[in-house]
């Protein structure tokens, strides 16, 4: 089980990113626990400078813009 956090205040890019992460995890059969962090105070604890951000098991793996599918897949591959 991987703990995935999507950091973003709810703009369209954040929603797209969330959907993409869910989809890729499901396609690869990786079990994830998805959490959406929407409070700006909480988001800023991760020191990102652009939303959406993605945190996997406490590590920031992405910030700013929608990640490419290839990139998302690599997050889950390295984990196995």
């Amino acid at each position, binding site marked *: 089980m991987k703990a995935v956090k999507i950091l973003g205040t709810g703009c369209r890019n954040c929603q797209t990113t969330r959907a993409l992460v869910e989809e890729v995890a499901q396609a690869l059969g990786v079990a994830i626990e998805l959490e959406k962090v929407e409070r*700006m105070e909480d988001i800023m604890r991760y*020191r990102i*400078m652009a939303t959406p951000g993605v945190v996997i098991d406490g*590590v920031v793996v992405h910030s700013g813009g929608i990640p490419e599918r290839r990139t998302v897949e690599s997050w889950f591959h390295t984990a196995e």
Partner: protein
Amino acid sequence: MRQLVLLVTLAVIWLFSYSHLTTIADALIAAMQLTRATPLGEAVHFFCYETPKVLLLLLGIVFVMGVIQTFFAPERTRALLAGRRLGIGNALAATLGIVTPFCSCSAIPLFIGFITAGVPLGVTFSFLIAAPMINEIALALLLSLFGWQVAALYLGLGLLVAISAGIVIGALKMEQYLQDWVRAIHYGEDAAPQQNDGLALDWTARLAAGNQHVREIVGKVWLYVVIGVGLGAAIHGYVPENVLVSFMGREVWWAVPAAILLGIPMYSNAAGIVPVVQALIAKGAALGTTLAFMMSVIALSAPELLILRKVLRWQLIVTFVGVVATGILVVGYVFNWLL
């Protein structure tokens, strides 16, 4: 290598289409059995000529901008700006505001990232004003509908507004008007600083980023372009000449401030507004007045102010709006006076 061939091929197609726009529009008009002598013919010709022109320029500029932006990740820009003094810092911040990727939903993380890294408040504001105001969409549209002179003037005066507004805000020493939670911010245990300055990318990744930028931006605004040019075309064909001179002409001194006030609550992107603005000008509205309106719509938008309200107290918001509006006011009058 395959990528390079593709890029060159696309560039050639782009150049060819761009140099044959009039021919294509004329052919389309002829095929529809219209002539430019009638209002309908003029409107349709305008639409058939301007829509592909704007879209082609948009594609080209957005792609190039997407590639340039890979060199300026926000983290790198922040490192370049940390500890800079007022003046040089503001000029650098405004310039970096053009080439650093920015969307208004990221305004707060960026703002806090800058402030906590020791970028002075005034310098941060120069960045925050330039980033949305001088964007590739506005530049592409101004370039295609007004020519390079006006696009360059917009760029230069936009920079000037961002730099001077930032200097003024910095000189006012308003740090105490940040929201308390921003001033109290300290990074938690789980903060993981990442090395992400964008310098490690290879060219394949940079070109892919340009491509991604095109899909994101052009995919979002093409419809506004079509609608905007459509409206512009209707104005071109049907609104009589000089009808706007009496209340939007350069002799009307109150037109510039009125345009700015009108622009603040409005929220649109450059793609929708520039074609309309261009058509208005052709009918006698003054360039300075209409550009001030456009700057106000883009740089001072109510939704953006609501976002900033989360990190700034109202005193600082009011100062921000006041200083930027004054800057745009000056720009509007200068444009009217120059052209």
